């Protein structure tokens, strides 16, 4: 694409890691086989921002030389219309039985945009074990079903498009009696190219530069506070989004904050406030400077100077 498409990943990164990463969707190995300790191998939006489907691969081995990979792929619920870009699923008749000559097994879900398959052009899977791996493929398809896009596609009424963004930020606040720093990683653990938090934004019918933040997915983060030579820490959660302004070159994201843990008496658990990130949307380096403002705990972080950086990119 010549234009930069901004819109699509992060929800997927986090929420679907649960399906494919949290609980291992790979079925147990058939008798005499061993499941790879690396199972599952997942390739989805966390690996490639913008992608709206996930591939889960489960590898099995049997000494001394047998191996097979059973693969499931599914469209994410965020995929606006899987008919346009995913093709497979929602059709139980679309299948391919294993044959000694064909060496491919394929089964599609009847109720989800998903399928599972294994293929063995190199003859590493003994024919007598093909049936066992058909059962593995069907089980894997079942295990990923909850994460996959349902077959229902609303063609009757307009669908509001949710644009997905990834973000991270950090700030240092300094005043005469207080120093504080914290933030959410601009590089996630699984992929240094992807920030650790995300949000979706929707625009009203007459809106232009201002969108409403519909959902936020972000880890609880720590704000370290040094006051009167004592160290404190706040655990802060992003409760919800407010709005997202994009008036080139300015980008401003506003979010609701809540303190969920604190050993700092001036800012106790349960306190609420706002986070405002303002940055240049044309600079997408992970350490791009940004204006960060934390409105929390009776202006504790108001009168002073901030230094910060932030990234907001399309998913």
């Amino acid at each position, binding site marked *: *694409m*010549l*234009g*930069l*498409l*901004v*819109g*699509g990943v992060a929800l997927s990164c986090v929420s679907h890691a649960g399906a494919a990463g949290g609980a291992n969707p790979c079925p147990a190995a058939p008798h005499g086989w061993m499941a790879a300790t690396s199972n599952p191998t997942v390739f989805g939006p966390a690996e490639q921002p*913008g*992608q*709206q489907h996930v591939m889960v691969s489960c590898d099995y081995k049997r000494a001394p030389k047998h191996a097979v990979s059973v693969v499931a792929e599914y469209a994410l619920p965020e*995929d*606006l*219309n899987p*008919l*346009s*870009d995913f*093709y497979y699923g929602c059709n139980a008749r679309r299948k391919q039985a294993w044959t000694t000559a064909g060496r491919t097994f394929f089964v599609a879900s009847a109720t989800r945009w998903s399928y599972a398959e294994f293929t063995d052009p190199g003859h590493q899977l003994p024919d007598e074990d093909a049936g066992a791996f058909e059962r593995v493929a069907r089980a894997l398809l079942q295990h990923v079903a909850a994460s996959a896009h349902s077959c229902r*596609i*609303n*063609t*009757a*009424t*307009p*669908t*509001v*498009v949710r*644009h*997905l963004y990834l973000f991270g930020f950090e700030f240092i606040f300094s005043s005469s009696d207080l120093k504080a720093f914290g933030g959410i990683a601009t590089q996630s653990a699984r992929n240094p190219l992807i920030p650790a938090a995300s949000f979706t934004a*929707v*625009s*009203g*019918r*007459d*809106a*232009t*530069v*201002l*969108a409403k933040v519909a959902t936020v997915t972000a880890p609880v983060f720590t704000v370290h506070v040094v006051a009167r030579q004592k160290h404190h820490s706040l655990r802060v959660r992003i409760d919800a989004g407010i709005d997202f302004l*994009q*008036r*080139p*070159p300015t980008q401003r994201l506003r979010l609701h904050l809540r303190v969920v843990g604190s050993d700092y008496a001036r800012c106790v658990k349960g306190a609420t406030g706002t986070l405002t990130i303002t940055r240049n*949307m*044309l600079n997408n380096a992970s350490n791009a400077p940004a204006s960060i403002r934390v409105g929390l705990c009776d202006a504790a972080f108001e009168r002073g100077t901030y230094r910060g950086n932030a990234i907001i990119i*399309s998913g």
Partner: protein
Amino acid sequence: MRTFALLLALASTLAGTGAAAADPVDPDQSAKVSADVNLSLRTLTPGVYELVVQNQSGVGAIDSFAWVPGPGWRVTSVLATSRGTCAASDGAIACRGKISPPTRCTCLPGGKVTIRFRMTGPRVRRPAGQQGAFVVGTAGGYLVVKAVTLIHRHIPTALPSPAQ
């Protein structure tokens, strides 16, 4: 990926007020293409521009969208639209009206809307010693698709070959 999303116009080039008077046709009309939306912007007369938005997506019909110009540019009024309704708001354009998807394949044009509007640009001084036409460029504008009506069939990306 088929993200019906925000299309950043990376390098829209608009004729600045200076030389545009002498050269009303912008030599660089800055067509922008994505898998979902084709976007072109051109100068009609000084201060008056035309934006063409074409649906190139297999997702469905576009029901509403907004176009936001790059830094320093501000849409002041919408003069005409070929379909639906568009209005200037916050220095940008908000449009409603169905733009149909391509019918046979996404390799062929889908529906389109043409918008004529007034826009002011940044004050840019002609570089010292420069002769001839003076064109002011911009980058960083974007188009956001806000609502779509999904289509329940697959629109292929290419037409079948005659042999098929």
